[in-house]
Structure formats: structure tokens, C-alpha cells
């Protein structure tokens, strides 16, 4: 994975000192809260319902053991002993103190981590495929391109005060595991007919209150124009994105209001102009970065067989591991969704244990997924049982990846000052309702996603079953929707009808699974059956 050179170290150290100075000016009263707020947000520091919250960037979701270990230590030293992994592949701490934040950031910098641009109206952390570098189906590892974009977007002077936040995602395989087309800009690394690598650009996707799937805006950008084209996309948005209404300020609204073709025309015009400016890094820089992402030293003679005689182990292997490109290895996903647990939360001890396993058994690499789980990307099959035992001993071996219990949930009203309803207790109740492994196995793949407000941090629009919490005259109420998906077959979920109480929505979810099981044909997943038979039979069961 990428290692900082002296320049990268210096940039992050400078940012820590800049923020330390901003905190000093805030505490001394030189800066009012109104003046300070956009500055602290650009450094990931929010004010939430109970306290400050710090969001630390995990660029493209990749971490070393030392980085993960320190995330655990930070949780103990500066927070209350736990952290929350987010749908943006980052980690959040819920109880950070303002005057200690610069010290926490200085410690993070020692392991090449930061909170730069994890909030605010700027280009956010670049997300990517959690199986990058390990997946059997990728064209190339997408992370070097994400790193090139990370450096370009860090403190880009023209794009620090955009109309609204801006999220970029880079993938490089046909299977989209990162919801690429639900980003402000989605980039898919592809090969053209001549066999050359390039970038396919999508723009104007997003969730929030107006969910949209990004249209393709260019099928092939040569790699030596990647930054210039990105800059053209951003400049058109910075100049013409709406600033009169916060809820209409994302690029998806600009693309929608201009129309895809007119946005493309403006971007191409700006691109043609920017090609005359010497702003593109040489391909040698991409090569330098790429050299950090070579394969680890896989053992070519690693045995490819696995002893599955232990039934609990077998179940976990079936559910939570994925084929690796290298024979003798697997990708193992650690579920942060224990039955009745808080989705995405991990204690400091659990974080350090995962760090240790990453170091010992996965070539010192871990990943965070947008589904709020952790991945050990390169585990020798011969080590898998040992890894599983260690996870099991720490409550980290729940075999439910992509099953009904593997619920994405935003922090909701338990933590978030924007939320209208709680998300986590609902996730806990659904997970408990479907606790039986037999029941889960019968239902198979079913992605449930819960947001506590229309900002959609819990990706409810993209859930096979999506749930949105709303405030109904001071009471929590939940809207149910079906048919969303974030993969290559991206679709947006449709609302079923009137909302439910918390218990009511758990019942409705159960009834929906019964409709699915009664109508399922062959190997159909819940989503496939829904798409075939439509909403009506589900509605009848839920409201009838």
C-alpha cells in the first residue's frame, strides 16, 4: 500500500499545525463559532447531538496494521473506547474534545493518517473497491488512481469552497462493490479497444433527498489527462452549481437541470481549455504511486484446500469469504454486525485485534467496506481457521455477510444532530428478529439499509429493503422501500406506502421476506423476486 514520502509527511504535519492554530484562535475568541465551523468541518470535526465528533479519513478504505492499531489507541485515549466505521469507509469518534483534537491528529500523522476534507463543501475522501488488489475480476488495482486523485484534491485551492460536498469513487472491475454510480463523480478504470488503460467518467450520482444514478459523461479519458479532466468537471460545478439552496447544491442537481448533454458540453469545453495549461502530473508520478500497490509476496505453493469439518467454521467460510485472485488465499470479511449489535461499531480492543490479524495473516493490510465491515484481503487458506478462532473469541465472527443481519445503518438520532429518528435500535431489532442462522440461510442475500433522515447516510435508496426514519409529529416513524441496489445493476428503491412505528416496520420486513419465500423461483434473491413480481404482492401482505 501507499507509503508517504517526505512531502506527504510534511503536508499532513502542516495541516495539523494549521488546525492547532485554528483551535487556539477559536478558544481565545479570535474566531467565532460561525467563522470556525467551516474550518473545523474541513478537518472532519463536527458538533453532534452530544459532543464533537471527529471523522478520520481512511483513503480508499485501505489500512495497515499499525494504522488500525492506532485507531484503537485513539479510541481509548481521546474517546470512550470505541469507534464507528462509516459507509464512506472512514472511522468516526463520538466524544472528541476540541482542545485535544490537535494532539489526536498529531498522533494520527505518525502513522500517515489525517482528517483532511472528511467534511465540508470540498472534495471528500476518495472511496474505492474494498477488494482492490485481491479481487479475481479486476482489470487493475484502482487504488493508485484513487491516490493520485487524493493528492490532487488535498488542499486544491480552487475547490475548497464548492457549492456542496463532493464525493469521488474509483473502481476497476465489472462488479461494482462501491456504489460507484451513486457518487458525485464515479470513475471506472477500463481498457479501450487498443488495450490501453483509461478512465470512464460518470457524474451527478448521489443519494440524499433526491437520489440519482450518475450518467456516463465520457467513456474514455487517457490516463495522462485524468487530473485535467477531473479539474474540468469540478470547475464547471464550482462555477455553476447552485448556491441558493443547500438542498439543490449537489452536482447531481446541476447535471439534472442542465441535462447530461449540456453538462458534458461545458466540461468538454473547459477540458479543451485546461489541456493548454501545464497542470497534469507526468505518467511517471502515476507509475511511482503504482509501485506501492504491487502484489504482496504470495506463496505460490500455498495449499488451496480447506478443512471444513468444523460446522461453525464452515458456515463462516461460506458466508464471509470471497475468492482471491491468488490460489491458496481468500478474502475474509469481518462482520461488524453481531446479532443485536450496533452496525459499524468496534471497541478499541476489537480494533487492535483486527490490526494484529491484519499484520500476522493478511500482509499487513486491512480494508473498510462501505457496508461498515472490515476486510482481511489476503489470508492464506492454511491460516483461515486460526484467524476465525481469534475473531470468534472477540465476537467478530458473525457469519452474515450480505445477509439480512448485515444491516447498514447511519448513527441516527442516537448521535446525529440532523437525524429525525433512531436507526440503530431498529437495526438491532431486525437483526434479532432474524437471529436464527437457518432463517437467514433460507432468505439468503438481502441488503437492508437504514437512514435516520433524508440525507441518506445509511444508503436506504440503495437497499433491497430500505428504511427511512422520519419525524411524525414528534414521534419516530419509518418509511419502507423495496428494490434498491448499488451494484452493476444500480437501481433506486421505491416506497411501499404509509410509514410504520419501529415495531411495525420490523413486522413489515418479516412479512416481506415471507412474500419473497413464497414466490421465489430457483436461485432468485429477494431483489430478483421483487423485480419480477413487483410491489403489489408485498403491499398486500404488509398493509392487507
Amino acid at each position, binding site marked *: 500500500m501507499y507509503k508517504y514520502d517526505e*512531502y506527504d509527511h510534511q503536508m499532513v504535519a502542516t495541516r495539523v499545525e494549521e488546525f492547532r492554530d485554528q483551535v487556539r484562535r477559536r478558544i481565545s475568541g479570535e474566531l467565532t463559532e460561525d467563522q470556525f465551523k467551516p474550518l473545523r468541518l474541513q478537518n472532519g470535526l463536527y458538533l453532534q447531538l452530544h459532543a464533537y465528533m471527529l471523522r478520520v479519513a481512511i483513503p480508499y478504505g485501505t489500512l495497515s496494521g499499525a494504522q488500525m492499531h492506532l485507531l484503537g489507541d485513539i479510541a481509548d485515549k481521546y474517546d470512550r473506547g470505541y469507534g464507528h466505521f462509516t459507509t464512506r469507509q472512514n472511522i468516526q469518534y463520538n466524544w472528541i474534545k476540541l482542545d485535544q483534537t490537535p494532539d489526536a491528529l498529531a498522533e494520527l500523522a505518525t502513522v500517515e493518517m489525517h482528517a483532511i476534507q472528511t467534511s465540508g463543501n470540498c472534495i471528500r475522501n476518495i472511496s474505492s473497491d474494498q477488494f482492490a488488489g485481491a479481487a479475481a475480476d479486476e482489470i487493475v488495482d484502482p487504488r493508485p488512481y484513487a491516490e493520485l486523485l487524493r493528492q490532487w484534491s488535498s488542499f486544491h485551492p480552487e475547490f475548497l469552497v464548492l457549492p456542496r460536498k463532493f464525493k469521488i469513487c474509483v473502481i476497476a472491475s465489472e462488479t461494482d462493490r462501491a456504489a460507484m454510480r451513486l457518487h458525485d463523480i464515479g470513475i471506472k478504470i477500463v481498457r479501450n479497444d487498443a488495450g490501453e488503460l483509461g478512465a470512464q467518467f460518470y457524474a451527478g450520482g448521489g443519494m440524499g433527498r433526491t437520489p440519482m444514478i450518475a450518467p456516463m459523461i465520457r467513456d474514455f479519458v487517457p490516463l495522462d489527462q485524468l487530473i485535467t479532466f477531473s479539474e474540468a468537471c469540478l470547475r464547471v460545478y464550482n462555477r455553476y452549481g447552485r*448556491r441558493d439552496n443547500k438542498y439543490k447544491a449537489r452536482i447531481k442537481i446541476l447535471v439534472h437541470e442542465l441535462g447530461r448533454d449540456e453538462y458534458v458540453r461545458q466540461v468538454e469545453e473547459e477540458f479543451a481549455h485546461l489541456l493548454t495549461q501545464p497542470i497534469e502530473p*507526468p505518467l511517471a508520478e502515476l507509475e511511482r504511486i503504482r509501485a506501492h500497490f504491487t502484489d504482496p509476496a504470495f506463496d505460490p505453493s500455498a495449499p488451496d484446500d480447506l478443512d471444513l469439518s468444523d460446522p461453525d467454521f464452515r458456515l463462516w467460510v461460506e458466508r464471509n469469504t470471497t475468492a482471491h485472485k491468488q490460489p491458496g488465499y481468500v478474502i475474509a470479511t469481518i462482520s461488524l454486525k453481531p446479532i443485536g449489535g450496533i452496525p459499524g461499531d468496534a471497541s478499541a480492543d476489537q480494533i487492535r485485534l483486527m490490526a494484529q490479524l491484519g499484520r500476522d495473516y493478511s500482509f499487513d493490510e486491512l480494508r473498510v467496506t462501505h457496508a461498515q465491515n472490515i476486510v482481511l484481503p489476503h489470508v492464506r487458506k492454511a491460516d483461515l481457521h486460526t484467524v476465525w478462532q481469534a475473531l470468534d473469541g472477540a465476537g467478530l465472527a458473525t457469519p452474515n455477510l450480505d445477509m439480512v443481519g448485515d444491516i447498514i445503518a447511519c448513527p441516527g438520532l442516537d448521535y446525529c444532530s440532523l437525524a429525525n429518528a433512531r436507526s440503530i435500535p431498529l437495526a438491532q431489532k431486525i437483526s434479532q428478529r432474524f437471529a436464527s442462522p437457518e432463517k437467514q440461510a433460507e432468505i439468503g442475500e438481502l441488503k437492508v439499509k437504514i437512514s435516520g433522515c433524508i440525507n441518506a447516510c445509511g444508503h436506504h435508496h440503495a437497499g433491497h429493503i430500505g428504511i427511512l426514519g422520519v419525524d411524525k409529529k414528534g414521534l419516530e416513524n419509518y418509511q419502507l422501500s423495496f428494490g434498491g441496489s448499488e451494484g452493476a445493476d444500480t437501481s433506486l428503491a421505491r416506497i411501499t406506502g404509509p410509514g410504520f412505528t419501529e415495531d411495525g416496520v420490523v413486522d413489515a420486513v418479516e412479512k416481506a421476506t415471507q412474500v419473497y419465500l413464497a414466490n421465489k423461483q430457483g436461485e432468485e434473491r429477494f431483489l430478483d423476486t421483487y423485480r419480477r413480481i413487483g410491489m403489489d404482492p408485498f403491499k398486500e401482505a404488509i398493509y392487507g
Partner: protein
Amino acid sequence: MVEVQFRFRDDEAVNDPAVTVDSFADQSNATAVRIEPGDDARALLPALDRIALVEVNFPAWTDGRGYSSARILREAGYAGELRAVGDVVIDMLGHLRRCGFDAFAPDKPLNEADASAAWSRWDNVYQATAVDGRQPIWAKRHPA
């Protein structure tokens, strides 16, 4: 009129009253223009050689359109004074400079010590803006 607090030019300060972008087109003798956030900086390109001062107004520093306006003018070869006016804050000084601004007239004068720290904060930069004369990190990593 608000004072210019910082200026990074050796030529004589221009103090002509700035006209709006709209009225500039009709006033062949105007030499100073003021760009508001919603104005198209490219409307000035045909007449760049007779402009000595462009003021770019920031009614609120969180509206970043002026950054693009500045860079567009510099990319087109504008060499006159480019002045940031309005809600100009300490923490954005370095970034404004990188987009081509070379004069600053904040509504409220800035603390000189904080400003001086801000000017010298970033020894290195990740991107080429091509209008600030700075060599980005990637160029230092790969000397020609």
C-alpha cells in the same frame, strides 16, 4: 473605500473606481472591473489588455466561485492587479494567492501576525495551478 491590506506587486497601486462586468462592456475608458460571484469572468477576456485592476468580491468566503474567476483570468494571461475584496479570511489567504490573487482588501482588517503565518504556512503544494509560479510536489518528485 476599503483599504488594500496586502499587496504583492511592485507597480503603482490602481485606485480607479471599479465598474460592474455588465457596465464594463459599454465603458471603453474603464480600467478597473469588479466581478461578483455570479459573473462570468470570461466576459472580460476580449478586453484584458486595457484592464489594470480586477476586484473579485467575496460576499461570504464560503462562496468559492471567485477562485475559479481568478484562475480563469490568469490562465488567459491577465497580468494586472487581481484583488480579493469582501469577506477575506486568514485561513484562505494562501489558497487565494495560489489562484492568482496578488492584492487583498478584507472588509475587516486581518491580524497581521496570523496573516504572516498564513502566507508562509505551505512550503509545498500538491497541484499545479499554473498561475502561481509554484512547483507542485509531483514536479519535485520527477525533476525534468
